[in-house]
């Protein structure tokens, strides 16, 4: 292949990647604007702008700054985290059906959230910052459990058995959550059911503050490792042959993925399928190289969740349906489509 030709193809890939990323940034901004206008109390675009520059009424300020904005910000952040987490899981397991929700990671985090809520009240400030740590522990434990259950010494890790174990562990942990909360504190029972259907419950600035540092810490690490993911995705032998410390890198990325999913789910509720769809769409749009695949998964995940959240508030006005329901209605058919297409 001539170098010149190679360069132009490489260049085209870059242009395409950057275009896709910019389009999704734009889409998120548009959705952000629509989302600010949507809700039980309608604010016109003009009202929103006036409030943002500080000349709105006090009531409008409360609605926008205390209720709507934190929720929108949370939904974008959660979508970004889940998208990246799903992308890592899919690349590491080389399994198109991987998703933190399907693999039981979300459920493990959820169990910790429920225990947390049973022991502290939901609006105490200091413990909320501690919540992502707990979620990480829970998510890590259940990920380890799923991995152990799916692993067979002779056959290694089969993609479908991984998914099957994840589904079963999720069912078991969800049941345990219900029984446990009834035992610990029946008042929180409602909270568990709401968490399970995926309502974004932590919609205030404290939760944004609890989640943001994790994303700021983990996302750069993951993006920095994009090349490593490219190599790992080629398979263990090739990766070792190319001089990658496979076990070490894999563990680091897995922990990052679990931490991202755990902290997002801790504030977002049990939202599945975002980590499945985001990376798939991203792969179609920008190709398999993680340099663009990771940020594209992040942005698509963020866009999906902010769109789903806006839809959840808009579709059945004046009622609000949990965001997780909207995501499942979009995500489950997509999962079925992938399942029907898959070979193994």
């Amino acid at each position, binding site marked *: 292949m001539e170098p010149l030709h190679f360069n132009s193809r490489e260049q085209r890939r870059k242009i395409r990647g950057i275009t896709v990323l910019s389009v999704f940034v734009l889409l998120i901004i548009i959705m952000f604007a629509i989302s600010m206008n949507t809700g039980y109390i309608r604010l016109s675009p003009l009202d929103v702008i006036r409030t943002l520059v500080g000349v709105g009424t006090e009531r409008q300020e409360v609605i926008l700054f205390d209720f709507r904005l934190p929720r929108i910000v949370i939904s974008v952040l959660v979508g970004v985290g889940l998208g990246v987490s799903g992308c890592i899981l899919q690349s590491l397991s080389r399994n198109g*059906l991987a998703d933190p929700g399907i693999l039981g990671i979300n459920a493990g985090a959820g169990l910790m959230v429920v225990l947390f809520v049973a022991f502290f009240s939901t609006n105490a400030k200091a413990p909320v910052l501690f919540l992502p740590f707990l979620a990480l522990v829970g998510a890590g434990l259940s990920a380890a459990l799923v991995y152990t*259950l799916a692993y*067979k010494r002779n*056959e290694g890790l*089969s993609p*479908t*058995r991984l*998914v*099957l*174990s994840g*589904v*079963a*562990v999720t*069912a*078991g942990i*969800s*049941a*345990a959550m*219900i*029984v446990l909360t*009834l*035992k610990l504190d*029946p008042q929180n*029972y409602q909270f568990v*059911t*709401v968490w*399970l*259907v995926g309502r974004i419950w932590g919609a205030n600035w404290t939760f944004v503050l609890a989640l943001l540092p994790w994303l700021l810490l983990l996302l750069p690490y993951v993006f920095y490792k994009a090349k490593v993911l490219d190599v790992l995705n080629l398979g263990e032998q090739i990766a070792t042959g190319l001089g990658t410390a496979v076990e070490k890198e894999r563990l680091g990325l897995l922990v990052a993925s679990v931490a991202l999913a755990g902290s997002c789910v801790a504030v977002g509720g049990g939202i*599945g399928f975002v980590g499945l769809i985001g990376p798939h769409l991203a792969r179609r749009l920008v190709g398999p190289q993680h340099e663009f695949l990771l940020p594209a998964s992040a942005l698509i995940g963020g866009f999906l969740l902010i769109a789903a959240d806006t839809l959840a508030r808009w579709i*059945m006005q004046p*009622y609000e*349906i*949990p965001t*997780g*329901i909207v995501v*499942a*209605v979009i*995500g*489950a*058919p997509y*999962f*079925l489509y992938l*399942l*029907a*297409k*898959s*070979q*193994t």
Partner: protein
Amino acid sequence: MSFHTGVAANEEPHDKGKYAGKVRSRPFVASVVLLGGIAALVLSIAASISVGAADIQLATVWEAVFNFNQDLRLHQVIWELRFPRALAGAMVGACFAVAGAIMQGMTRNPLADSGLLGLNAGSGFVLALCFAFFPDLPFLYLIQYSFLGAALGAGLVYGIGSLAKNGLTPVRLTLAGVAVSALLTALSQGIAIYYHVSQDLAFWYAGGVAGTKWIQLKIMFPWVAAAMIGALILSRSITLLSLGDEVATGLGQRIGWVRAAAMIIVLVLAGTAVSIVGAVGFVGLVIPHIARYFVGLDYRWIIPTSAVFGSLLMVLADIGARIVHPPYETPIGALIALIGVPFFLYLSRRERREL
């Protein structure tokens, strides 16, 4: 239709060649287990009636059943609340377990269960629609819509599962079942919230037999009885199907008809059960395997044993639901899932072939 499955449950490979029509069964052990199961069931129903917010002596239970006195408050509690509840538990458990047994035998899929394969979620979805749009629909019609819902769920799962190139593997079916269930459950929840038909979303997760009325039992009984008799009549054919399509055809079974009849029975059983208790899974998965362990591979024994064991599990789980954290009721589906999930994992690991 061909199902690329490992051999069902306890079946050992040599059985297949050696006995074409005569499968391993243990009539003596089976009779003992069946009778023991029935005795345990009667005892647990009695226990179920006496346990609750007001503890009632077993002697009083006996009195209330056989010598009912309208004026005694306890007798009324027993007759109007506890007794229908215990019977509903028993009936629903039998339905789920027999539906699971038939599905496992017919499709030779050890992971078959009405909850896992989308039937329960389908019923739940159609019931949610009924509650939302026809809130005054009599239970008789409700139960029939519930059958339709079960058919919808099963149709979606099998349809999507068979779209794939390598056909229907147990794992693919299970995964399709999970996704279809997730979709239908989400839709039911959306409907429930929008139309305020469900104050408590937990019903869609878990369910329970509390609050069952005699009238519901009377309506569901003929359906359940007919389906059970049908299942027993078909049981020999299901045994043959469980040996594989070639064997069954070779022995003169018209497998198309048997499948269709068996499927209708499964839909009636699952639909009825869901209309009473909600979408409870795993009963139909766990119980037939336990039954098979005791009575061998002949469905003439597996089906009645599954019915008795299923009833027993449900009645015991319902007692458990009341005593875990009184006075609150723990959702029965959550309790059963806690038993069912480890069992499911064990089954999916044990499978010899790549699932």
